[in-house]
């Protein structure tokens, strides 16, 4: 069980800000592939990973990062703060 969060246009494409997912994914990429296989809106949101950023437990990381022990994964576009 892991909380998956979406922000900005990723949130809009998925259609919700947060969901809890039952998964045995080993890496972030495994989780992405599971989500992609679910429904068209996921496939669309995750169609170009180079346009996405990921945080595991609120730390920026890469798509090959392990998910072992993680409670929260967030997907979002490149940040535009400041």
């Amino acid at each position, binding site marked *: 069980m892991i909380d998956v969060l979406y922000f900005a246009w990723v949130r809009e494409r998925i259609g919700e800000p947060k969901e809890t997912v039952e998964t045995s994914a080993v890496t972030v990429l495994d989780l992405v592939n599971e989500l992609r296989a679910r429904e068209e809106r996921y496939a669309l949101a995750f169609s170009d990973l180079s346009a996405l950023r990921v945080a595991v437990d609120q*730390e920026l990381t890469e798509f090959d990062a392990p998910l072992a022990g993680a409670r929260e994964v967030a997907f979002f576009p490149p940040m535009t703060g400041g």
Partner: protein
Amino acid sequence: MSVRVQSEPFDAGAELNAFSMGAEGAGAVVSFTGIVRDIAGGLDVMEIEHYPGMTEKAISGIVAQAQQRWDLADVLVIHRYGALHANDQIMMVATASRHRVAAFEAAEFLMDYLKSRAPFWKKEHTKDGADWVDATDADEKALDRW
């Protein structure tokens, strides 16, 4: 160090004065204020989304990096989220140091990292619709110099 993420407006001048008063031994205080621009014309609302929980943590991490690199008496970061309008102040950064070069460099470092490493996203609402602001290559490249 003081990091505030808030939807309310802030008074940059009052913040600058309070910050300067508190920064003992500093000879140089640099501030940066970011203001909402109506670039294309017709900006109705600038919506700023953020990632509650991660935002403060990410900013504090960026500030800690700056404190390791430069001898800083104090650092202040305020960043707003929510619905803003043209000419509203979005955020401010202030740095205090004994020397001007450290204060300037640290403020620029903080701005460069806040731009593309703190979890904020801007959406511009105009009468023609709404669009997420794209991150720029220039902002990403700005990190290379540090």
